[in-house]
């Protein structure tokens, strides 16, 4: 009874991300309990805002979570990942600035309503997604390679949209999306994330997106013979990711009210992919759990924030992150679990044989022989 319960818990997809989150929490608790302190302070604009590491995790984790939503769908449908999200964030952000500021990089007032700029960004994001999606679904190019094109070209295109100038948005309202709305001490990104999660939850509930995506990801041929159009499903996944990218771009650009083509959302694709993987979703596609990915995004951000806490420079951060990631992926790999499981089984068997010496020599031989094998493997 007890064992099956433990098995049920450990085999749940949310187990790994939750454990990772708890582990990070414990480490922080031991090293510096201040990590959990949340204070109310007044920011530069004179608004009361919450601050502290937890708030940072919520704030920056949210933009990652939004990307993880789209990335999960792309991964599930195509069995590959989109590595161009950072670059397309630059494109969508740049397009947004172009609409807001016009041709003058230092306008006195915004040239178009923010909503129009955002819609244009959405359109641009979806176009980029459509480009990737077309390459993957129609031309059957592997996703990683297809998106390598925009990965390489994205930032140059973003720079080209604004003639390599760095426009600054004059409207203080524009800063609300990546910062705080006056009077509300919680970062706006959290609300944007909640909205996105709500939308995708409704979509998953009231459409067959989940079933179609998984069917295509698991067995494309079979899905086609059941009347599903795999080309369109894959294409759609990329377009949805494009939409997520546009939302992330709004947040990213809003944070600084301008853009830095080479730095904006740098390496974010890696974090988004890791969020999906940490959520226990197979990177080779097929079945997925959206909420595990979203949680995975916050785990990644918690890790980043924790590492910053240890005064690790942002450049060196990557090395530590890599070690943690490898450990996480390593211990969640089915093969490793199998080895570990085998090892425990053999340990038990060994104990038993030690007790029952009467058992024939040959059996003991077999068991010890297999034990050697396990040790070798480990």
């Amino acid at each position, binding site marked *: 009874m007890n064992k099956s319960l433990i098995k049920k818990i450990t085999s749940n997809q949310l187990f790994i991300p939750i454990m990772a989150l708890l582990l990070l929490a414990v480490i922080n608790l031991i090293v510096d309990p201040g990590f959990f302190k949340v204070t109310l302070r007044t920011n530069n604009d004179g608004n009361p805002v919450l601050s502290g590491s937890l708030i940072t995790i919520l704030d920056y984790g949210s933009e990652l979570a939004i990307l993880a939503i789209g990335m999960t769908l792309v991964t599930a449908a195509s069995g590959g990942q989109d590595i161009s999200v950072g670059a397309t964030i630059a494109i969508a952000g740049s397009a947004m600035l172009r609409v807001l500021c016009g041709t003058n990089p230092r306008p006195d007032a915004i040239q178009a309503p923010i909503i129009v700029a955002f819609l244009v960004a959405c359109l641009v994001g979806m176009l980029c997604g459509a480009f990737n999606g077309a390459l993957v679904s129609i031309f059957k190019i592997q996703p990683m390679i297809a998106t390598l094109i925009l990965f390489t070209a994205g930032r140059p295109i973003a720079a080209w949209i604004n003639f390599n100038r760095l426009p600054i948005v004059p409207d203080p309202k524009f800063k609300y999306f990546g910062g705080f709305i006056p009077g509300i001490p919680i970062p706006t990104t959290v609300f944007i994330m909640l909205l996105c999660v709500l939308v995708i939850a409704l979509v998953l*509930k*009231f*459409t*067959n*997106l989940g*079933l*179609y995506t*998984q*069917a295509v990801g*698991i*067995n494309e*041929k*079979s*899905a*086609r*013979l*059941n*009347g*599903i*159009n795999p080309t369109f499903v894959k294409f759609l996944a990329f377009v949805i990711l494009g939409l997520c990218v546009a939302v992330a771009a709004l947040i990213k650009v809003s944070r600084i009210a301008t853009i830095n083509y080479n730095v904006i959302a740098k390496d974010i694709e890696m974090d988004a992919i890791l969020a999906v993987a940490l959520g226990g979703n197979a990177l080779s596609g*097929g*079945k997925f759990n959206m909420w595990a990915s979203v949680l995975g995004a916050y785990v990644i951000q918690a890790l980043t924030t924790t590492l910053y806490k240890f005064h690790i420079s942002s450049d060196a951060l990557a090395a530590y992150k890599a070690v943690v990631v490898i450990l996480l992926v390593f211990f969640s790999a089915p093969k490793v679990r199998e080895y570990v499981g085998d090892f425990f089984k053999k340990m038990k068997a060994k104990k038993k044989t030690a007790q029952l010496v009467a058992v024939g020599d040959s059996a003991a031989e*077999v068991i010890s022989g297999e034990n050697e094998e396990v040790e070798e493997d480990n």
Partner: protein
Amino acid sequence: MENTRLLEMRGIEKYFPGVKALQKVDFSLNSGEIHALMGENGAGKSTLIKVLTGVYGKDAGVIRLDGKEVQIHSPQDAQRLGISTVYQEITLCPNLTVAENMYIGRGNGAITNWKKMNESADRILKRMDIPARATQQLASCSIAVQQMVAIARAVDMECKVLILDEPTSSLDEQEVEKLFGLMRDLKELGVGIIFVTHFLDQVYEVCDKITVLRDGQLVGEYEIKDLPRVKLVAKMLGKEMDDLSDIKGETESYSGEDADEEVFEASKLVSNAGIKPFDFHIRKGEVNGFTGLLGSGRSECVRAIFGADRVLGGKVKMHGKPVKIKGPKQAMKNGIAYLPEDRKIDGIVGDLSVRENIILALQVMKGFFKPFTKAQAYAFADEYIKKLNIKTASADTPVKSLSGGNQQKVILARWLLMHPEYLILDEPTRGIDVGTKIDIQKLVLELASEGMSITFISSETDEMLRTCSRLVVMRDRKVVGELSGDDLTQSMIMSTIAGGE
């Protein structure tokens, strides 16, 4: 010729999570013997063979080769010990040349001598009469030729034990004969051959002994002369079988007043899969079938009807009204269902649950924006799990963990749930156990008696004779005849397939 004990497997056990795949199985093989390994799907034949070839490790038991105990941890070990294998699926590399596929992974030389390799490969291909060149890329050969190349490789390895795991499923009759000739030659040379197949005829044609497995356990080892067919089937099923000859008599044919209505008509239908344009029609409540050798185009015909391949031309009518069927979805909308030939590749969606697999087609019909509620989906699934007697732990079990026969039933359930007017079954009985085969044939007749039109395709002619009232005969990718009534006999089919001249 003296037959010595070549291979001995004793007390072999193999566990998978939650399943005892093999329990205390014994198997022995003499030199110069062709030994059939029989059993239903899920009986443990493949597992036993994979243990012997080192693909799986065994959990207990001993393997002795020539009286010496051996440890086989990988396919390389097996090869080194003189055990070579031909699998049902092509296990060659499509991107390499024919010659490379025959020689890679063999021998100890670290350097490839292309010239020598190609020459000897060409020699073997010629000797075995295989229509391929050594330097040709394997992917450019037909499936049957690829299978022959795999056999050539296995034979050329000068093995002591040759395992043939359903190698004949993609071969036509001539090629099967060629293979049997080869097997007999090898037998003369003292090679022990383990032969796995679903075709009983083939067993009785070439084998000396039969070992029967059931549910992962050994049923027994028999001399071929001591075990007539009926007994063999009984051993495989674990029960005495009532006569399976005439199930057609048991069910009445459909007799509604619209019994003569043409449900589906096609004229000059042609797809991009390389078939000649063909005409076809089916009445309400009729069971008909396409017959012909493998590769004669029978699957391609029904795929064209369903729009599974790209339709290039032809006119299609449903109930006398012209309709357009450009793809599976339009076919489904017109009430056509298609159970594809290859269950694993075209049928199941492995990681999804039994429930999701069952509702898939109906769900797609219902529309992207109208998902079934969980309760509805469970109700549908449970209904058909019961109706078709699908053996699964629950409706949430991933379909890939079911046995072949049960997977087939799941796909059948998927299409029945749609309540189609016209159901196409392409090899529904391939690679599944005898019990399920009969279940499916009975079901076909039952459905037809209720007014469903069904096209039934099977490699086993007697199955088709038992179920169909009209057969379309195909040869070389075109329709060459149509048989019905008294013409429906084995010999008529054979002579029509063979051609008049």
